[in-house]
């Protein structure tokens, strides 16, 4: 598995340099990083706001890599660092783009790791429609995704992941923590979250501090966000929602929810019961 086994990678500066000799190299672009381990294994890590500019650039470079350079590789695309999606922009991009048709038969396996929430739905829909000829597979965690592309050296993937974190800055780790928390709000621990992100507890806490936030703040926001969804969508009673999002009791949830949203869960549900839902931009 080339450099992923040796845990070393060389970052190059230009697309031309990368495409000339991709194996063992990676390239950082605006909003994403593209890497190649061997002629049969390559991938992308996307972060921040998913704009049409970065999507177009990423798709163009990825298509050139797959069609002109590599030999029917497995592709791993990691969107977990995306924290903002302009839904309407992405929809327009999908309408205009069927570029991946060119990659039909040129990709052995395409595995996509999605973020949680509406961003995951929008990106999942975009990939499903754009890359349909490649028969994409979807995952929510990096471990199973790596296994799907025939690579199980999680620690080695961290080498390239670290380059992405350095390029994005500390906010990438905040996005990843939030993503992880949204998947499990009840039995969550700092240790468990750090382990899921393949980092140490101290490193994760330090990076969160650098990003101007904390584990507790991210957990509180993730719980309020989940409660928000259940209050709007479901008929679950408040105490059932509280238990489901890890806030224990209705009174505790009420206090946390009011502190964050300015209204109680009951008031919020009453306010939104008749509201017409608009398709939101995740970037708000």
């Amino acid at each position, binding site marked *: 598995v080339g450099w992923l086994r040796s845990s070393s990678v060389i970052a190059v500066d230009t697309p031309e340099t990368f495409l000339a000799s991709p194996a063992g190299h990676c390239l950082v672009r605006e909003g994403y990083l593209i890497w190649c381990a061997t002629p049969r294994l390559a991938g992308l890590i996307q972060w921040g706001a998913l704009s049409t500019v970065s999507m177009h650039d990423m798709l163009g470079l990825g298509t050139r890599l797959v069609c002109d350079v590599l030999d029917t590789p497995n592709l791993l695309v990691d969107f977990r660092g995306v924290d903002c999606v302009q*839904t*309407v922009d*992405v*929809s327009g991009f*999908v*309408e205009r783009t069927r570029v991946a048709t060119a990659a039909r038969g040129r990709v052995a396996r395409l595995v*996509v790791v*999605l973020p*949680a*929430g*509406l961003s*995951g*739905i*929008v*990106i*999942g*829909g*975009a*990939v*499903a*429609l754009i890359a*349909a000829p490649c*028969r*994409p597979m*979807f*995952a*929510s965690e990096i471990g199973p995704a790596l296994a799907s592309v025939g690579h199980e050296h999680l620690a080695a993937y961290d080498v390239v992941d670290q380059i992405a974190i350095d390029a994005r800055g500390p906010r990438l780790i905040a996005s990843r923590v939030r993503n992880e928390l949204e998947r499990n709000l009840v039995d969550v621990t700092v240790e468990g979250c750090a382990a899921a992100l393949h980092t140490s507890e101290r490193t994760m806490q330090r990076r969160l501090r650098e990003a101007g936030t904390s584990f507790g703040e991210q957990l509180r926001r993730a719980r309020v966000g989940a409660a928000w*969804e*259940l209050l*709007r*969508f*479901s*008929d679950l009673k408040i105490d059932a929602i509280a238990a489901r999002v890890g806030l224990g009791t209705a009174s505790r949830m009420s206090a946390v929810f009011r502190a964050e949203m300015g209204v109680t869960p009951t008031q919020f549900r009453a306010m939104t019961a008749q509201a017409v*839902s608009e*398709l*939101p931009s995740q970037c708000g």
Partner: protein
Amino acid sequence: MWMIARTKSPSPPDVFVGSPVGRFVVGPTYLVWCESPDLLGAILWGELDNASMRELMVMRHVFDRMRLAARPRVLVDCSRVTKACADALVGVTSFVRERAAHVSNRIERLAMVVPPGLAGLLIAGVLPAAGIGHPFHACEELGDALAFVEHPYAAAAHGAAARAADELRGTSTFLLRLRALLAALQFPRPSAPYVARTLGMSTRTLYRELRRSSTTFADEVRRARDVTPRDLAA
């Protein structure tokens, strides 16, 4: 002869669960059909909002209890959907995610036809975001979906179900329930009090709802007799 094409009326969910082949069930914004133990489908229309998604979630119980002999191929046609509410789809994704492994183990492959534009993008993203593991294909063309499903009866069965869906769209939930019940009753002249009780309402409410739907009890009984010449027994 395809099974669905011979069925004119929707079945009550309980009948469908017990013996789904050749039958379909209808809700306010969906129709679910089963052509054979290895071929299922659904047609969705209108607005996918919180209320319609909640209705659709009821179908998961039906799916869990259905007696199917094989892991079916599934064709979901959402091309008649006019609007997708993001909140509702986020909620549905959470629900499906909790059951993704179970659902994936029971499905051989699933193709989904989505409407163009924003609604289609969001609908196409629900199952990927929920972490489903079975082969999945989203597209805007029915032909692409049929090619992915790759079942000899898929096109004919979907066509028959789509015709039924187009006839039933706009029919009130009350009438759908009433007609499903009348179609399933084994005796030819059910009494109004019996039907009202079975539907969980008083006889007066039954007659009031019938008046509101511009029909009569006798007309509905006659209609059920005309359109169900034992097609449910086929």
